[in-house]
């Protein structure tokens, strides 16, 4: 995956709560057997509404999605992450994420950033202002910086992410390769498993 160290761009405010992965990418788009091209299915049903935020020309080229509470709930489909990446997003900011979506994001190089609800609302306001705010999501410093967008003062809001996931994202490392460095431990564990455990073949 592409490393993520720091990213600067404009934001799209998605003022909706409980955005489940069925909305991010509806099931009919899950039949592809490749990883690419999912951007066309991103928010497919909502994009049919000309007023939907992604259809507004002013947000063209924005790369950071700023959404409401409980973003990415529901289905485990990693296609939701692939769709956001393929469309051009590099980070999603929300007050809370669905667990599987958040894990999938960190495996594919999309940065999920949890910020307090009030700060998310401020950033959404600033993204809607004219001219809009500039955001920098700095994974190295674990901080989101927001300037412009009519803010009374610039925002520098820290966020939490565990050291290991941060390191892996910053290096763009493949998890499987990391695990296989400990293959001897897996083999040793396998010899200790009870004989009553089931096998499929």
């Amino acid at each position, binding site marked *: 995956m592409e490393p993520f160290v720091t990213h600067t761009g404009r934001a799209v405010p998605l*003022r*909706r*709560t*409980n955005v*489940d992965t*069925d*909305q991010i990418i*509806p*099931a*009919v788009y*899950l*039949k*592809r*057997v*490749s*990883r690419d091209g999912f951007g066309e299915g991103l928010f497919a*049903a909502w994009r049919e509404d000309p007023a939907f935020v992604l259809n507004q020309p002013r947000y063209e080229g924005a790369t950071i999605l700023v959404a*409401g*509470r*409980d973003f990415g*709930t*529901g*289905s*485990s*489909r*990693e*296609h939701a*992450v692939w769709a956001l990446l393929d469309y051009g997003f590099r980070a999603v900011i929300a007050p*809370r*994420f*669905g*667990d*599987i979506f958040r*894990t*999938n994001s960190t*495996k*594919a190089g999309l940065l999920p950033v949890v910020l307090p609800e009030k700060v998310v609302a401020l950033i959404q306001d600033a993204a809607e202002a004219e001219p809009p705010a500039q955001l920098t999501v700095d994974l190295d410093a674990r901080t989101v910086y927001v300037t412009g967008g009519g803010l009374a003062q610039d925002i520098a809001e820290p966020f939490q992410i*565990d*050291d*290991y996931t941060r390191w892996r994202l910053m290096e763009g490392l493949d*998890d*499987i390769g*990391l*695990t*296989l460095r*400990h*293959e001897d*431990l*897996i083999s040793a*564990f*396998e010899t200790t*498993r*009870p*004989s*009553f*455990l*089931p*096998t*499929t*073949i």
Partner: protein
Amino acid sequence: MSSAPRTLAEKIWDAHVVRHAEGEPDLLFIDLHIVHEVTSPQAFDGLRAAGRKVRRPDLTIATEDHNVPTTGVTGPDTPLEGPGSPITDPVSRTQIAAMRANAAEFGLRLHPMGDAGQGIVHVIGPQLGLTQPGMTIVCGDSHTSTHGAFGAVAFGIGTSEVEHVLATQSLPQIKPKTMAINVEGALPDGVTAKDLILAIIGQIGTGGGQGYIVEYRGEAVRALSMEGRMTVCNMSIEAGARAGLVAPDETTFEYLKGRPNAPQGADWDAAVEYWKSLRTDDDAVFDNEVTIDATTLSPYVTWGTNPGQALPLASVVPAPTETKDPSGTERSLTYMGLTAGTRLKDIAVDTVFVGSCTNGRIEDLRAAAAVIDGRKVADGVRMLVVPGSMQVRAQAEAEGLNAVFTAAGAEWRSAGCSMCLGMNPDTLKPGERSASTSNRNFEGRQGKGGRTHLVSPAVAAATAVTGRLTAPADL
């Protein structure tokens, strides 16, 4: 290994740690990996690109469930393409063909469309006895939490993690916190496992379980059958919890005994002895505890577009200002075409769906059949009954349930995920409304523009009879 009191989830977790290092996720060994056609093709591509094999084909099982049609499946010789193939969508066919090619290339056991062992991933694991207490189980499907009913740590994963498990039979995971949901007292007559889990999600919300493994405890949980426990654990993810579990007991052992992949002979005795140790220590502390009074519950139904938007069937559609998320409620009501104050019992449906990994097991079909026996599906209502597996279908036919359903005017189908998510031809049309025994009432979940009310199998059957959301007691 610590000697401090531990919860059940912690015991299972600790027993599977291959590697623990400060500041890193634990590397967990995975006892069983279930694979299906939708979330696996890119994972197999990844293996091929890196020149990797499946490390433990003997701990892996695959089936075809999400895409398969539920009509026209004629048995083991059902063709994938050409004349007689039930699959009309070429993209679905490609995905199923990829599953078959990948299973053959990597040496995996596959139960394909038409096979007597085919069914929904979360129905076939338990029915084979592959799902056992104390195991770690994963699948590229969020409803893997179902298997927690047996006292296993079971959770859904994405495709990158599917590839990781295929390659290494392990997964790096940050240890979740633990939550106890204590369901005190007994469920009143006519109140089912589905009503219980909808009530729980209605209380704690779609994010209430986020970051936790939930253990369901208490008198009402102990009294549930394995099917009921699976229904409850299945929807843990709808409360945001990646996993939910129930400590194993005699009900669990009784269910497992004699199943094809359950231990036999001396292995059975050794297994049961271990399984009996799988309970939360009396003085263990959960990170969070929630208590539900089972005696106050009644049949539940969802009115909105997420499973937390659930209320007793006897109530009315809420006003946005009465809810914690007024703008979200407003959006939900607009999508659902509902007005605040409408009695839930007055909501008319076009379609009734009985099936899915939540409620597609034999006991669910029996519950629906008991209600509809001798009655008729209302004019203008379409009722689909889709068994969770071909084995459930065969058992239901042996019990004559199919005849009950077809005599009532319902459609008796073959096994698959079907209208739960509409990846096969079983979908709602825009504006159509369903009562569904599945797990998600998300916008468009059952077909673009479709509107879903989640219900139990008994409420689904009663609703089919009247054409409006109805509890069996009101027939």
